[in-house]
């Protein structure tokens, strides 16, 4: 229980702008404790994906970001990226190998693990997402739902402390959404989900962050936000989605 009080992600006054463009993130501050499941919601272009990319150091924002006790700076990138996994919105961005096995093993190979350990962890990760029999499958031949599950396995195999999901249910049918939810619920890691899907957020998370035009406009219990129809409507959200 003591562990659950430790902040695994602490963001203080984070600003980010793409070159020659307006600010996408304006002074974002929040912290997330170990084991928390948090939804990040907001209208299109609110900065949800940009925030996730900033938390992994893929985009260089200004401000102070601490992940797993390490400041987000270049020298810490290898360790931070080992402890934070990001599941991209489109699984085709994440599954770039010719076989499912190679994709799931990719991160482990770069961690310098032995062959037996790689094979074991890859198998375990695929089992966790119900894709164990697809080890030798070609990613292109999988359905979107299956690709999503393999994309999650590519992250799970690295056993990160924090998992970030970017629009995890986008384009999925009801069955695939249900399967995702089942997988996400069993995760013991700290989870951040950037989503429009408030039903998914409600089923998975207890806390909600709402981003709008680069500002953090709400940080609190998800259930309270769901009762506040005006708040949701003001920021392009709808609990019935």
């Amino acid at each position, binding site marked *: 229980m003591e562990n659950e009080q430790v902040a695994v992600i602490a963001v203080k006054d984070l600003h980010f702008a793409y070159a020659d463009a307006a600010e996408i993130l304006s002074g974002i501050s929040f912290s997330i404790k170990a084991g928390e499941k948090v939804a990040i919601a907001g209208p299109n272009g609110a900065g949800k994906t940009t925030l996730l990319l900033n938390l992994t150091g893929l985009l260089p924002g200004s401000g102070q970001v601490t992940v797993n006790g390490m400041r987000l700076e270049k020298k810490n990138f290898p360790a931070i990226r*080992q402890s934070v996994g990001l599941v*991209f919105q*489109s699984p085709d961005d994440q599954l*770039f190998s010719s*076989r499912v096995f*190679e994709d799931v093993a990719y991160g482990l190979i770069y961690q310098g693990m032995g*062959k037996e350990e790689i094979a074991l962890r890859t198998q375990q990760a695929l089992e966790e997402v119900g894709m164990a029999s697809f080890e030798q499958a070609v990613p292109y031949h999988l359905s979107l739902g299956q690709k999503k599950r393999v994309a999650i396995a590519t992250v799970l195999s690295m056993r990160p402390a924090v998992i970030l999901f970017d629009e995890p249910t986008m384009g999925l049918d009801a069955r695939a959404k249900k399967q995702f939810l089942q997988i996400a619920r069993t995760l013991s890691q700290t989870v951040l989900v950037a989503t429009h899907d408030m039903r998914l957020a409600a089923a998975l998370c207890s806390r909600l962050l709402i981003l709008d035009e680069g500002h953090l406009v709400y940080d609190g219990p998800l259930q309270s936000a769901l009762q506040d129809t005006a708040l949701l409507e003001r920021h392009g959200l709808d609990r019935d989605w």
Partner: protein
Amino acid sequence: MVAFVVLTVPLFTWAVYILLFSVLTAMAISSCLPLRQVFKRAFLIEVPLVLILIPLPFLNQTAPLKALDWWGITLHISWSELLRVGVLMLRSWLIIFSMVLFTLTTPAGELLTSLSDLHVPAVLVTVISLMWRYLALFVDDSQKMVAARELRSVPARRGKAGRFAQNIKSAGSILGSLFIQAYDQSERIYQAMQLRGFDGTLRSWKKEPLQNAQKLQMLALLMVGILFIMGAYGIDGK
């Protein structure tokens, strides 16, 4: 093996070409491949090479020459060069035929693994792997765009030529759009690779080394190739 034999035997060893063609065709039939499609694909790949070779009989003026009158223009064509070009086309087509057969019967993953086993540089294998992985996606995307174009196309009033010009114009937009999509996707793929530890060096899952049976198969294939070449030189009488 086919490329090795074709490139080694004397130019006019027809018997070897016929034998190779027969063997490859038999392999295609036994693999249950539609022959017409296989030939069509091999001919299509041959087209750029044909375009390069066609001017040679007109440029390389080796006797005997024959004068051809086309629309008031007299061209001198070298028969010996024409025959040589014909044989070159046949040789290249046989190599392409074997490649088409190989790619249609070998899963891409095994092909890439084989390249790694044969110590092809890792960067080349990775580039081929990424190309193979994403080519199909871009083909899908382009087909969707073409379908969208067809659905929104106003019935052609300018005849076939006008429609062709219109299609060429929209093909340019489609290609431009695909390029931007491909560029964006490559950025995201690079980000995904970085997040899993990619540091600029290429590392891959090393499978077991080649088994003795596989080495024997390679050796047998090499022997068959050498027999072909020896036979060809025997047939040629040199």
